[in-house]
């Protein structure tokens, strides 16, 4: 997925955050591929291909991408670990999550990583360091505390990163997981996606703090708040947090301050949103902002970015097409994978024979 063809232009000599041109273009690519994938998802949804709801990270892409880019991503099971949310698909892609798997998941394809048993970004690939979440909010903080506890116990210089929305902070699991992690000094970074919304209600109905860094103090952990629309700032903040965590300074929090521009699920009506506020945030679109900077500072020229965008869209189109063409799972697969050893029986009524167990040995 890396923009290999783009290494033609000369590098600028004032690097942004120490990143070279290739890296900056990877960032750009990751941003646009995220947006393209989610737009493609919306199309698939309208076409009736998607099984359930679809979610969008419109306006939040820089948070996920910038954060993931700051970590040590590997595919051999020895790198950093990521627990994304539905609004951190960009991080998932950077960690090696395949576009086609993304679409397969939303369309419950047999070929997807969960074989249709689970949805959306809820999938796992430990080789790549991906730990998809479950729906109950907060749980992944507990789980990632345990994953990073294992890094600590084994003395490995790895870190974990877990994303959660701002409203998820009100759950007991969030608190227990974060506090456990803090006390055990687990090398875990919590990204608070402070997008100012819960589902339909403002996050102010969930918490009285203005900044989640006010919560960090209560756990005795390091924290900083960053403009979540500025991918470079996010990258730098998470780099710092990762450095601290890797150095044994324990759990860290980075607050991504931004705004949820679409509703909770993409196609919900946006009833309670102030149009002016929304317009303000549209003006701070993370992709446009980064684009402008890259162009202004001479890291790339518009046709080149255009090409990256075109390619991202094409990749998404192709991946979606492939996923669409693939089969849904075969019903009886439903009984598989409940225990590692014990076999779950198929319902006897499906065989259209009488219950073998009830009749095979009728008393004589």
């Amino acid at each position: 997925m890396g923009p290999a063809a783009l290494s033609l232009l000369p590098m600028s000599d004032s690097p942004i955050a120490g990143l070279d041109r290739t890296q900056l273009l990877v960032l750009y690519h990751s941003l646009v591929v995220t947006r393209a994938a989610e737009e493609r998802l919306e199309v698939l949804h309208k076409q009736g291909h998607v099984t359930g709801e679809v979610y969008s990270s419109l306006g939040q892409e820089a948070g996920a991408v910038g954060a993931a880019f700051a970590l040590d991503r590997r595919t051999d099971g020895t790198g950093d670990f990521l627990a994304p949310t539905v609004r951190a698909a960009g991080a998932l892609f950077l960690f090696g999550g395949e576009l086609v798997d993304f679409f397969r998941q939303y369309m419950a394809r047999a070929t997807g990583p969960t074989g249709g048993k689970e949805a959306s970004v809820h999938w796992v690939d430990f080789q790549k360091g991906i730990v998809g979440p479950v729906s109950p909010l907060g749980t992944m903080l507990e789980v990632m505390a345990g994953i990073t506890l294992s890094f600590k116990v084994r003395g490995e210089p790895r870190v974990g990163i877990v994303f959660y929305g701002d409203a998820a902070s009100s759950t007991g699991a969030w608190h227990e997981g974060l506090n456990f992690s803090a006390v055990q000094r687990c090398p875990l970074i919590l990204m608070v996606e402070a997008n100012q919304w819960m589902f339909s209600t403002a996050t102010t109905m969930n918490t009285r703090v203005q900044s989640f860094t006010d919560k960090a103090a209560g756990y005795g952990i390091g924290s900083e708040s960053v403009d979540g629309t500025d991918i470079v700032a996010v990258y730098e903040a998470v780099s710092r947090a990762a450095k601290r965590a890797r150095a044994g300074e324990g759990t860290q929090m980075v607050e991504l301050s931004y705004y949820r521009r679409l509703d909770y699920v993409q196609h919900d009506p946006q009833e309670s949103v102030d149009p002016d506020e929304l317009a303000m945030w549209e003006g701070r679109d993370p992709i446009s902002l980064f684009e402008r900077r890259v162009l202004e500072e001479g890291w790339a020229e518009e046709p080149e970015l255009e090409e990256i965008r075109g390619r991202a869209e094409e990749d998404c189109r192709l991946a979606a097409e492939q996923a669409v063409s693939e089969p849904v799972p075969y019903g009886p697969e439903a009984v598989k994978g409940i225990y590692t050893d014990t076999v779950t029986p198929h319902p006897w009524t499906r065989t259209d024979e009488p219950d073998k167990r009830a009749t095979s040995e009728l008393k004589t």
Partner: protein
Amino acid sequence: MNRPAPEHLKKTARGEPVTLLEAISEGLFEEMVQDDRVFLMGEDIGVYGGAFKVTRGFLDYFGDLRVIDTPIAEGGFTGAAAGAAHMGLRPVVEMQFMDFISPAYDVLTNYIATSLYRGAGPMPIVVRGPVGGGNRGGPFHSQNVEMAFFHTPGLKIVYPSTAYDAKGLMKAAIRDDNPVIFEEHKVLYRAPALREVLPEEDYVVPLGEARIVREGSDLTLVTYGAMVHKSVEAAVQLEEQDGVGVEIIDLRTLLPLDEDAIVESMKRTGRVLIVHEDTRTGGIAGEIAIRLNERAFEWLDAPILRVTAIDSPVPYAGSLEDYFLPQVEDIVTAGRYLAAY
């Protein structure tokens, strides 16, 4: 509070049919109008009217002291409901999806269910929300939660299958002095076939009383929730194709269980099939089976059998979920087998 009710909550008053969801909304609304101790808490129930819009218009009508949008903290606001109940209020708590009742498992089983026993007084709380599969919701938006609570003395569990019952049971649940878990099946919420015209006057459906859905002399089929409707379909097939008369009992209240209704029917038919959408092992079928053993073993002419979901999480893909859930054909197969026993 003399303002007119919002238009969408006056269908019954206008003599129009309502869905199961609308019946619940009306039930909630009427109880709140009649008794100002009744109030609502839950996630997104105010401005938004709840994930399924059960409380649409309530915030405007009753204000934010009686329709409280809570933080995401199922344990926290359920515990707060307990406190409010101590002080004479009658909270109705919405779980956005009933799957998310699990963070409240502790406070429900340890605090709320034991309150009366510990001398801390009655707990007039209703915890309600959408349950059930068939909607491609996946493992965390499709669960039935009755068996998480069926083993907890002190709780009641209600699970309506019709609009009439849903409204009457909701009113009874709100008026009950014991904590009630109220399960609302998502697939039934707006099912057109369930639309019915409800009585204009106030009525309740008492908790703890099952309903005979249809009579039959060959087989007693005990069920509840969405499975009532699949069971009726199966019964029609069995009658038409096999001449088997299936008596269907809709439990309506799962706890306390209307043992008498089941025993009486079973004494007439001698055969019992239990159908539940919930997973198999540890499902309610077991309790029914042993109660029948205790009370009417001599009348049993065939084994007590069950048709249920598979022992697994609820899968997301439609193909898997359909295989996972009990289907009409399963009920027919089992019914046929029992009738021939």
